[in-house]
């Protein structure tokens, strides 16, 4: 029993040691800070939703070296922001053979304490699920929920498994539940941000809510639900095409718009600049509009 505890203690200390080389403290205003994770020799990743607007931030690694870090780009669809360290480069420790995340296995979440040290949290992988789509339309490779309690400043730090493999970085879901953005998702997002500075998404400029199509119009529309336009972005593609609040979107390029996910999948990076036919129900009649899908402007 004692041996098992000692082994555990040694393993935990070793894990924390490896994490020290990954964790960065990103200085914010009013003496606050946020955590970041070293992803490539000179590239840091952070939680996009937690990183305030700004072009550059002062960053301190756990060995007290500091550097200015310029924002390379932000991807709200996967909640990844990438920053380039300007004065030094450290290769992140080679992760041990990537072990598949397993529900119930131990997860170690690390963050920056703001004074050059790291914070450690220990929990288990509470839930594990398949790939999912974020509200902003990004594909997240796995659903990983960890049962750790984090402070706001620890968001964006790495999560390691017991073998030292990096599962990803922490991010807050509603009600302060903690999700892990998986490494595979971060890799993809960082790749795109390095290449283009952004992750392009098609954009119509509408807020939509699913509604039941009134009985009298169902046969004309050929479906029972559609998406009602609740609001439009001024001079966005939908507004320019003549769409107005109250219109019920029934199809896009002939595909019925009944599910958010299918709509999101039609607005991938390749959709930008494409002219598309949109059918809406307006005052009881089916109206066809043509809209040119734009690139989503930075939020």
């Amino acid at each position, binding site marked *: 029993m004692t041996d098992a505890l000692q082994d555990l203690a040694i393993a935990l200390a070793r894990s924390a040691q490896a994490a020290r080389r990954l964790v960065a403290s990103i200085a914010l205003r009013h003496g606050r800070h946020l955590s970041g994770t070293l992803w490539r020799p000179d590239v840091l990743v952070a939680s996009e939703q937690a990183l305030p607007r700004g072009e550059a931030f002062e960053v301190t690694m756990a060995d007290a070296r500091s550097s200015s870090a310029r924002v390379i780009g932000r991807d709200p669809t996967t909640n990844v922001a990438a920053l380039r360290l300007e004065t030094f480069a450290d290769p992140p420790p080679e992760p041990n053979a990537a072990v598949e995340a397993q529900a119930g296995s131990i997860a170690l979440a690390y963050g920056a304490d703001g004074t050059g040290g790291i914070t450690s949290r220990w929990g288990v992988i509470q839930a594990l699920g398949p790939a999912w789509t*974020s*509200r902003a339309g990004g594909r997240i490779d796995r659903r990983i929920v960890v049962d750790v309690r984090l402070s706001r400043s620890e968001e964006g730090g790495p999560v390691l498994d017991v073998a030292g493999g990096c599962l990803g970085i922490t991010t807050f*879901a*509603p009600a302060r539940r903690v999700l892990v953005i998986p490494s595979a998702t971060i890799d993809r997002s960082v790749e795109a941000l390095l290449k283009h500075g952004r992750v392009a998404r098609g954009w119509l400029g509408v807020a939509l*809510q*699913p*509604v*039941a199509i009134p009985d009298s119009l169902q046969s004309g529309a050929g479906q029972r639900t559609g998406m009602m336009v609740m609001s439009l972005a001024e001079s966005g593609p939908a507004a320019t095409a003549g769409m107005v609040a109250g219109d019920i979107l029934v199809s896009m390029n002939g595909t019925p718009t009944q599910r958010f*996910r299918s709509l*999101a999948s039609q607005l991938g990076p390749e959709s930008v600049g494409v002219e598309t036919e949109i059918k809406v129900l307006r005052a009881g009649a089916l109206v066809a509009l043509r809209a040119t899908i734009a690139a989503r402007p930075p939020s």
Partner: protein
Amino acid sequence: MNALSHAVVPVPSLRVLVLAQDPAMGRKLRDLACAYGHRAVQRAGDADVALCADGATIPAGIPAVICGARSRAVAGWLPADANAIQLDAALRAVAAGLVVRSPAILRDGFEALRETDPASALTPREAQVLACLAQGLSNKAIARRLDISPHTVKFHLESLFRKLGVATRTEAVAAALEHARIATAEF
């Protein structure tokens, strides 16, 4: 608002310092505050309360409301798309020394796109009435906005209460805010 309602309920206006890095955002916040009779001032020394956009420097010494962010340094947290009614209520509350937290901003976080079960989808009218409810409009104001009779508004509200499983208007407003957050997605 007419002179009579002023005479019956004296509603003091506040001197509001609006702070935003983006001038367009600053104008929008100023207009929202002024829509409820508040007055915009230029200096913190002249202000009762500050209204800050995300990213603005928060002034010391006066209570503040921030839109689109949370900060322990300020008493009021509102979402970026807060409406005039919420803004007015928040400004008055923090000026009176209270703390304001919007459920929308507390429940903020990275989350999955959730699909609505087609069986429980609202009718277009119900969705519009619910959106008005989320903005805090009265039955009369909803009727005017949607150009329908107050009686019809009541009819839609009854059906909404049933679908949302709520019994009171207060519950319905809370459910409306939550529904607006979950069921609406931007594309």
